[in-house]
């Protein structure tokens, strides 16, 4: 296949592309889903195809095909160049990325292909059964999802790379109901790992704890609203890092001045306790990748250092525009999607506070516990994060459980209020969209952080 991709690249060059690449990808996803103790879905999904991408001045042309015969690949190569030539965007020439050869297998302990389906089905059944800790648990849901990506890339700078990515996740979600009130709780484990995710988990305890926590949610109270002292747990800290500071640090937003962090390098953007990075090399983290989808090795990018804004994440194109080195953040959902500047693993670095000390200092506030979702706002720098639940802190003590609520405010104002950062970092795996599509696997996280944030919840 590498030879066919190289031919397609040659054709795009001959047709007039300034820069071009050809990607071939096979993505195989296996899933087992159990609902209320019954196997609901056992499946394998596979997509396979090629993307031809050509650049002329500042415009890109894409053509994708699932038929990768030589003739159709070459036809697609011509279409890609025609599409690029029809654009009218301006841009600088992408500097030579340098010749490279690589053939990498995923660094996992137990590759999904080496584990029988029977063992996988039984594991999910075990997780599901364990959630049923009480008759008030009215619904249990459990899932194993494994994804193997085989990537090949050739570009016009003589890079010929092939690499594999493996990701596995297990998820449990229990629904509890009593006297007309219904609540849920969930937990997820996984990352850029193989079946060792399951082997390392006490499946009975994993399911049982989620069942117990769902029951506790039935007594959770409405959260207070307004501007409060808030200790964000690692998942909510991660949303602040990812959704606001992360998306606004994607250099494609910066070159068109759509980011509130444009021209902020060297300026104080938060408390000196805040350091934030995007690091695609964290072993086993869900967003880790050997190369991005342009063939640039992943790297560690310092975004905020001791409260001072440091730098942006780059693709080949934005690095050329800004005259810096690419950082390995040019990513695409799959072969048939656009390459954008995207995050990998984005998180705040640890501080030196103990969580207990952080709680003890709070007279009236909230401790968050687990995220539901968050939303980007690179233009305005607004922060929105939905927490699954939290705890009320009164006079230095955790007193009550609070049901789902939302945190909001201006991210820079929030970061400036940071006065304590805990000594343990956790990463939370997920999937990130840009706008409302183009989903890539990422993780985000951080330590517990103490800020002033506006809260509200029903």
């Amino acid at each position: 296949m590498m030879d066919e991709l190289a031919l397609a690249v040659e054709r795009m060059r001959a047709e007039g592309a300034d820069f071009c690449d050809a990607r071939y990808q096979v993505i195989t996803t296996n899933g087992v889903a159990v609902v209320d103790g019954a196997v609901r879905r056992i499946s394998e999904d596979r997509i396979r195809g090629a993307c031809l991408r050509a650049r002329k001045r500042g415009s890109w042309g894409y053509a994708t095909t699932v038929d990768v015969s030589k003739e159709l690949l070459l036809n697609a190569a011509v279409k890609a160049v025609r599409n690029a030539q029809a654009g009218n965007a301006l841009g600088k020439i992408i500097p030579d990325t340098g010749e490279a050869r690589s053939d990498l297998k995923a660094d996992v302990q137990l590759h999904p292909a080496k584990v029988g389906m029977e063992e996988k089905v039984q594991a999910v059944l075990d997780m599901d059964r364990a959630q049923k800790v009480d008759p008030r648990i009215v619904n249990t849901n459990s899932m194993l999802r494994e994804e193997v990506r085989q990537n090949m890339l050739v570009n016009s700078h003589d890079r010929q790379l092939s690499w594999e990515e493996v990701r596995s996740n297990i998820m449990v979600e229990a629904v509890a109901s009593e006297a007309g009130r219904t609540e849920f709780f969930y937990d997820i484990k996984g990352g850029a790992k193989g079946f060792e995710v399951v082997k390392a988990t006490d499946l009975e305890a994993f399911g049982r704890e989620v069942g117990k926590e769902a029951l506790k949610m039935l007594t959770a109270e409405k959260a207070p609203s307004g501007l409060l002292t808030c200790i964000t747990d690692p998942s909510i800290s991660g949303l602040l890092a990812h959704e606001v500071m992360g998306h606004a640090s994607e250099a494609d937003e910066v070159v068109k001045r759509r980011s509130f962090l444009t021209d902020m390098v060297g300026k104080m953007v938060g408390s000196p306790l805040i350091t934030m990075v995007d690091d695609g090399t964290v072993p086993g983290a869900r967003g880790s990748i050997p190369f991005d989808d342009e063939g640039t090795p992943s790297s560690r990018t310092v975004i905020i250092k001791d409260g001072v804004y440091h730098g942006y994440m780059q693709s080949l194109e934005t690095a050329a525009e800004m005259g810096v080195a690419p950082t390995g953040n040019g990513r695409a959902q799959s072969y048939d999607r656009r390459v954008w500047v995207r995050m990998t693993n984005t998180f705040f670095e640890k501080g030196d506070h103990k969580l207990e000390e952080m709680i003890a200092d709070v007279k009236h506030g909230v401790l968050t516990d687990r995220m539901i979702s968050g939303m980007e706002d690179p233009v305005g720098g607004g922060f929105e994060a939905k927490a699954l639940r939290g705890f009320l802190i009164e006079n230095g003590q955790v007193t009550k459980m609070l049901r789902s609520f939302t945190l909001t405010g201006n991210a820079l104002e929030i970061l400036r209020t940071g006065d304590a950062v805990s000594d343990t970092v956790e990463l939370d795996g997920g999937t990130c969209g840009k706008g409302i599509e183009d989903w890539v696997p990422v993780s985000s996280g951080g330590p517990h952080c103490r800020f002033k944030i506006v809260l509200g919840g029903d």
Partner: protein
Amino acid sequence: MDLERMSKKAVHKVLEEGAKEAEVYLVRVRSLAAYIDDDRIKNLEEKLDQGVSVRVLLGGKLGQSSSTLHTVRDLDECGAKAVSLARFSRPDPYFKRFPGFSQPLGNVDTRQEDAASATSEDLRSKVQEIVEAAGSEVKVPRGLLRVALVERALNSSNGGAFHEVGTMTYAHFTSMTKGAEPGEGCECYYSSGLSALDPQRMGDGLREKAMNAQSAQHFKGKMTASVILPPEELAEMLLASVGYALDGENALRHRSPWGEMVGKEVGNGLVDIRDRPWDPRSALSGRYDDEGTPTREKPLVERGVLKTLLYDNYHAQMGDVNPTGNYLRRDPSDSLNLYRRGGVTLPVNMAWRAGNKSVDDMVSDMKEGVVIEKLAAPDVNGVTGGFALEVRCAKLVRDGAVVGHVDQCLLVGNFYQALKKVGAVGNDLTVHRNCIIPSVQFDGLEIVGSE
């Protein structure tokens, strides 16, 4: 490749592999897209995609597989994989068969010629018109216009069969004011065709919304007030809440708040929602759902009373009811990899009956409240109905007049409770995703800003 013939042959092949029942769903898509970056054409794309999804029943066990489709061998391998996976499953307590053949109950042609025959040059011209219409006071940092021609064919061992060809058009543009502390606007377009996309109207909307957002002041304090939600934001909230509550699976699994509410009040008399699967404006309209059950028009909530829940074929068998023709694999904004997606049970088109007031009329009747222009993420907890949503821009209304714009606050409430406090329904019907709805005023919602 003839998709109809291929799907029939594939069913036979899967049965030969040992399956007792089989369903084959084939899709072929040609998708064109034009992207704007900073007022200029950044990307032009042409994508060809085809694939298959196979579901089988073997010894009472279900298995499924999907694959992109290049050769007949891919089809055979996909079927064999579904059969081999079923062997590892467990006997399913409910599922007996895939839907059989039924004549369609209505008709709609969702193949709009303007979208089916569109070229990259057509898209290029259209997006440039939108940018020009936005004017010089704002720029368009991002824009996307996508059209797709989607051909689907299904065949099952129980006789189920359909073949439909439709089109999809989707546009999503953002705007921002120039200079320091910019405001941002956003406009979307969902349809089966291109003809209703008015570049001037979209450009005007982009300019006005960005300028409104720029002028917004941070909201301070709290208030309980009337809130008008525009169709774009309301649609997302409806799908997350009413869409979830109507799903028969959620009712059967005791996680829908409407599980026991058929025939009972779930809203006040202004809540009048139907499923209208044959509306030609929507890209999801069709004679059949995505597992071969005929779609049908039906009341969902009539003058506040819940009339029915929605069931796909599996959960209809679980609940011992008939499937309602609401199993959807398709998406109104993206037609790639449809064969890979698991289906969801939703109204094909959730249509809220229009009222007779314009939004301006609704504002003039309002004592105190807000008209939402943009929420960060209009999501609702489907289980509880709770929501607390960041307001990116809203008009502040006092004594029947707009007195300014606000941002940086939360809109807080419970959507299931809010349906009982609908104050007015607008006449501005809009297609957004698979909703055809007007602006709606909800009374008694909370706005929370910083103290």
